């Protein structure tokens, strides 16, 4: 195209007729393409309207304001509340399982991934066995297995299992220790955020000091110290706003702690076990992808094996691992929609119930897709931020 601009001026006079002019054809072709797409969408839209009217279903999104008539178990949700409130409950439940699942899956996956590189033959083999077993089975089968063959076959509440007075197992789910807000939780949350910011600031100051003077930084230890001290001080200064209790089995009832229903537990652990096997492969691959020369160079300048890992290998492997990890987080969040198979009230399940109760399916599914799209975009946003922070200076 630039050659054309530089061409001698006589070419302008012999400009081809419009039907053979590339510039005209390009614009015309794209316009035609857009018209075709728009026509197809318009056709689908009008057919949809016709069909909805023929079945005397609403053609707008007003159904969101109608009563749900869905009873959501284990909540104080009232079936006369509008559909959009039910969807909010579902979104919260989806986020609850996805966020907790991402944290546990990351920890478990990292441990297994590192175990696959262990010098111990048995540890290496055990980790490989885990990965190969779990990775090659559909996550849905794992979830249904955990629900029907594990959770529902735990002993009834009258014979519930107690482990170390901390966890209670029964076919009504797991009960684990938890803290209940009894005082000024809001102030405590703010205090926690302030303490966390302070800890990060102290760690940064130690690093700068270390860079300036060469004395050991111990940034992590200092930060951790500030964090622990701050949390303890805030906890007691605000009059113990959170009461920690362990579940206690008391004549067919569990008091204290927090109960995870069998659906939640099955979904959470199914997603965690499956995703951890994928994360383990990512962790292993990204550590192996750091060139061997880096390890050798680190040894040559006298770093200990911990320093070698912490300052040379991990920062580089993290850069490789972030995009695929974010992909796994996305997958876990999207796979949480499999809740619909075991009856955990997430977004998808509530949408399904809403459709079963006579709400218009096309709109309900569009709203559902929109919610997941928003969740995906949020995760993608964080992943891009992490990527930019970790990217090599000067690259892109």
């Amino acid at each position, binding site marked *: 195209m630039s050659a054309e601009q530089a061409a001698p001026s006589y070419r302008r006079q012999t400009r081809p007729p419009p039907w053979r002019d590339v510039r005209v054809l390009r614009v015309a072709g794209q316009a035609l393409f857009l018209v075709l797409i728009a026509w197809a969408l318009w056709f689908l839209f009008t057919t949809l309207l*016709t069909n909805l009217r023929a079945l005397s279903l609403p053609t707008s999104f007003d159904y969101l304001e109608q009563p749900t008539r869905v009873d959501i178990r284990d909540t104080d949700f009232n079936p006369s509340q509008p559909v959009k409130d039910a969807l909010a409950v579902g979104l919260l439940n989806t986020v609850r399982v996805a966020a907790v699942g991402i944290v546990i899956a990351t920890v478990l996956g990292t441990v297994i991934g590192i175990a696959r590189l262990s010098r111990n033959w*048995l540890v290496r083999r055990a980790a490989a*066995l885990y990965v190969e077993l779990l990775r090659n089975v559909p996550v849905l*089968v*794992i979830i249904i297995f955990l629900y029907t063959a594990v959770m529902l076959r735990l002993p009834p509440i009258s014979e519930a299992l107690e482990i170390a007075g901390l966890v209670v197992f029964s076919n009504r789910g797991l009960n684990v220790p938890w803290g209940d807000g009894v005082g000024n939780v809001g102030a405590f949350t703010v205090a926690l955020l302030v303490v966390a910011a302070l800890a990060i600031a102290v760690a940064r100051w130690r690093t700068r000091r270390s860079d300036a003077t060469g004395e050991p930084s111990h940034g992590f230890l200092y930060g951790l110290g500030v964090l622990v001290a701050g949390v303890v001080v805030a906890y007691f200064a605000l009059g113990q706003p959170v009461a920690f209790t362990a579940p206690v089995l008391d004549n067919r009832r569990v008091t204290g702690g927090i109960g995870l229903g069998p659906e939640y537990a099955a979904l959470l652990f199914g997603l965690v076990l499956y995703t951890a096997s994928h994360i383990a492969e990512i962790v292993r691959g990204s550590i192996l992808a750091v060139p061997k020369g880096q390890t050798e160079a680190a040894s040559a300048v006298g770093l200990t094996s911990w320093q070698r890992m912490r300052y040379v290998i991990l920062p580089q492997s993290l850069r490789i691992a972030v995009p695929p990890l974010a992909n796994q987080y996305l997958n876990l969040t999207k796979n949480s*929609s499999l809740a619909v198979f075991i009856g955990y009230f997430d977004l998808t399940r509530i949408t399904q119930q809403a459709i079963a109760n006579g709400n218009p*399916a096309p709109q309900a599914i569009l709203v559902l897709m929109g919610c997941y799209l928003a969740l995906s975009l949020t995760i993608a946003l964080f992943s891009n931020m992490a990527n930019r922070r970790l990217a090599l200076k000067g690259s892109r």
Partner: protein
Amino acid sequence: MTAGPTGTATLEPLPPPEADTGAAARLGPRRWVRENLFSSPLDSVLTVIFGLLLAYVVYRGLRFALVSGRWEIIRVNLTNFAIGRFPREQVPRLWAAIFVAAAGIGLGSGMAASAGPTSRPVDTLRRLAPLAVLIVVLLSLARTPTPALLTLCGVAVLVGAHFLGRRLPARLARRVHWVYLGTVLAIFVVLTQFGGVAWNAWGGLLLTLFLAVAGIALSFPIGVLLALGRRSSFPAVRVVCVGYIELIRGVPLITLLFMAGFALGFFLPVGVPRPGLVTRALVAFVAFTAAYVAEIVRGGLQGVSSGQVEAAQAIGLSPVKTTRLIVLPQALRNVIPALVGQFISLFKDTSLVAFLAVLEILSVAQLVTQQDDFRGQSLQAEALVFVSFVYWTFCYAMSRASQRLERRLAVGER
């Protein structure tokens, strides 16, 4: 190493470190145990803990498989697991299809072996081991010897066709993809045409395989077009393709199955017959997988150096010819392992159609536990473990094949 800059005495160079792989082979059993299991106190503790853990898991697994598992439910329902509600009087067609498949695969692999690098028979057997185990387990669960005899015939056909394929002239051996394509078409014709069974009546493992194969085959051309569109120089095309790909990749597959199951009818004009549930599921799979295939192919397209395009332009190829003859062949070759990976994930995702009350293998597993003979006996574990085993063997075999392909394709690189 000559005199150092500080003038200190020259050191003798150390011998090079022993290569890890070579040394491991030469270690005696006692040294091997010490180095690999008890190299430090922590290591010993780990070995003991993991040894006990593994022993327990293996013990429980074996006990379940051989002693405590009540496999009668699988034995009785083996046909249901394999083909669902496929009419029983049409089963001979299935065997015919299996023979056609055996002949096609044998012929194709024979032709490929004569054209390309050969692998040792031991390696081939090891690669096929998971599938062989699956077939043996399935046959051992069968209650009549007929399937075993027919399978033996199938294996004979496979081996025969393989050696026939090796004898074919090299000129024909290059056309191996036509053999595979023809095999797929022939299987399809045998099953559905001339009084056969439409796929909406298929079920079990047959349906699982059909959805996965048809899903990837149909989404492949769409995915390639989307990938080309995403890299097109036309902004309008680019925007539409990017929009589609990102939209689909941002939502779970189940929402598309919802659409196909509950809402597809709303988008069809009145009077158009509503497609069957399997067809709807297939539409959802294709729409979903195409977006992922597009991203994989885009990766391949980005890997083709711009010099290739410039060279093609220099010898006067049109843009279409450049793409078809120069860019796509190189791009697609590089993404074959990733496409196999996508196929595996599609294969696993077919379990989701259980949601549409389509009788694929997972929904069979859930339904058989509610039969009169087995209800209330808590046989879910047996049914689901069996299904997991079927999924596992296929996925494991394919993932091994994809790793091998990856290594093989990497050999010619750079």
